């Protein structure tokens, strides 16, 4: 009796310990996420938002980075951007003791544009190749040694570190194909990087389409491609879009693959300032994650660089959130028409 009761007690104690450790692990994640978002939100918010109208720091969002000139003049602390400083110089002739801080004036507009271009291009490429091969794998191929090899290759590709993709892209696209540091090289490198997850997820969504729809269509005399195009792919698209949301976040956020292939630390022209339209694909761009990397590690840190770092990180999160939101809305639109 007594031993039984004791055993009961012990079992309950273990139950409580297990329950609380699981619970705490979950809360720990929540705490980390809250800290990260609050930290970036508050510190970045100071850069992006203003107390006075128009409340949003438009200069930060719509101009390119400039060097910041800090100096004391007339008992006041002056913080001027490159251009402002030169204009100031024309009216003031006296010598001042100036501290210059790179990238800390102006804004991050070229980085936003560059990241958007990189995301759109590489996702288009990855979705096209990814969906095509997923269709081949799930609808056409028959299981055999070759297809198993393909699957192993896809799994391994998913495990390759992004810096390796960067070096691969540098070797193949930048040097061997002679594309130089360019949007095109960045698209292919980033596209290849997200390809495995898009293939896997697309294949799963294709397989989730009931077999009855395929059979019903084929039994009416449809060819395989007609069946896929009209009666399988449309119903798999919501799932494919869901998976691409994760792909978007990854493409937008990776620094390593683009630092050798597509990203410039600083560029004054915007991507549409090209003389021939073909040049558009062969130009390097600025990108948000790479810009954050540069301002956080390539220049001496101080209160001025911190403003840019947090501001850029904040904008970056918002951009990813907006892109993700768009695909979620797109997905819900497609999905609401379907149910089985």
């Amino acid at each position, binding site marked *: 009796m007594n031993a039984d009761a004791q055993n009961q007690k012990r079992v309950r104690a273990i139950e409580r310990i297990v329950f609380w450790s699981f619970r705490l692990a979950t809360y720990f994640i929540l705490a980390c996420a809250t800290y990260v978002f609050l930290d970036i939100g508050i510190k970045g918010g100071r850069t992006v938002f203003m107390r006075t109208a128009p409340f949003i720091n438009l200069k930060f969002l719509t101009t390119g980075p400039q060097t910041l000139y800090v100096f004391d003049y007339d008992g006041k602390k002056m913080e001027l951007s490159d251009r402002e400083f030169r204009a100031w110089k024309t009216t003031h002739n006296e010598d001042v003791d100036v501290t210059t801080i790179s990238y800390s004036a102006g804004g991050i507009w070229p980085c936003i544009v560059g990241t958007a271009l990189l995301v759109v291009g590489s996702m288009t490429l990855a979705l096209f190749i990814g969906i095509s091969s997923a269709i081949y794998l799930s609808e056409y191929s028959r299981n055999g040694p070759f297809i198993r090899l393909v699957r192993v290759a896809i799994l391994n590709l998913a495990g390759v570190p992004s810096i390796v993709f960067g070096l691969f892209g540098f070797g193949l696209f930048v040097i061997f194909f002679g594309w130089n540091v360019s949007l095109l090289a960045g698209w292919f490198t980033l596209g290849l990087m997200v390809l495995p997850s898009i293939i896997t997820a697309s294949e799963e969504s294709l397989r989730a389409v009931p077999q009855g*729809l395929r*059979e*019903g269509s084929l039994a*009416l*005399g*449809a060819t395989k491609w007609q069946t896929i195009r009209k009666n399988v792919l449309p119903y798999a698209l919501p799932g494919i879009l869901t998976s691409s949301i994760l792909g978007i976040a990854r493409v937008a956020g990776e620094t390593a693959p683009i630092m050798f292939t597509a990203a410039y630390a600083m560029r004054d022209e915007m991507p549409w300032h090209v003389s021939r339209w073909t040049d558009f694909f062969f130009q390097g761009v600025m990108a948000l994650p790479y810009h954050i990397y540069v301002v956080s590690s390539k220049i001496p840190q101080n209160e001025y660089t911190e403003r840019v770092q947090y501001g850029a990180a904040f904008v970056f999160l918002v951009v990813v959130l907006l892109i993700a939101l768009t695909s979620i809305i797109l997905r819900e639109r497609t999905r609401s028409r379907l149910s*089985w």
Partner: protein
Amino acid sequence: MVSLLKMPETLLQRTPRQSTNAAPEEANDTAMIEMRDVDFAYGDNQVLFEVDLTIPARAITAFIGPSGCGKTTLLRCINRMNDLIDGARITQGTILIDNIDINAPSVDVVDLRRRVGMVFQKSNPFPKSIYDNIAYGLRIAGVTKRSRIDEAVEKSLRASALWDEVKDRLETNAFGLSGGQQQRLCIARALAVEPEIVLMDEPCSALDPIATAKIEELIYQLRTQYTIVIVTHNMQQAGRVSDHTAFFYLGRLIEFGPTTKIFTNPSERRTEDYITGRFG
């Protein structure tokens, strides 16, 4: 043999064929589907053995037998639906439709499936409007003329006795229909491409008795225009709707003949045991 009396005249102009397996009174019938010594296997697992069967035209033939006896497999051989399954194949024998070997390399499987329609056990309307469901087969066949599609939709919905129930909501999603209506929609969809043969794989197994009765009535009416092969678990159903019955057991055709004979005076002991409910 009521069906023979109702046969349209065109049929008489076809070349009569002597069928080896059929009962004597249908000797003049036109053979639509002939199976000659068909063996079938999924990988190494043989499921059909030497099936030799002649299915007459413009009549209803029922396949009956206990689960796993191969009747659905045989049915899916007729429109080569088994092509979709890895490792599934006819290992021996031939299946002829109008004297053409349907597994010959020269036969286009898409063409075959247009001639041989199929209704599945689980109703499988497409997640589209009722109209688009019926129009699907015509559109993939390249029909674009709206008036022709409209006409075909109405005609096949009338033929499947669904027109009056759905004529006011053709543009609504087919998933809004009841189970029985969905299955009749699938029949209408199959009829819209004007097949010669309609295969039905337990079309009523998921339906209530009232919906079942409606579909049975429909099947019975269709037999003047189509050759119908129906797989069923329901003995009464086979008795009610079919003109001929084939009884399968463990992958072999045990007995084939007019339904009245199979149900009243079977020549095989196993057929009698199954029909009277002693097993299966």
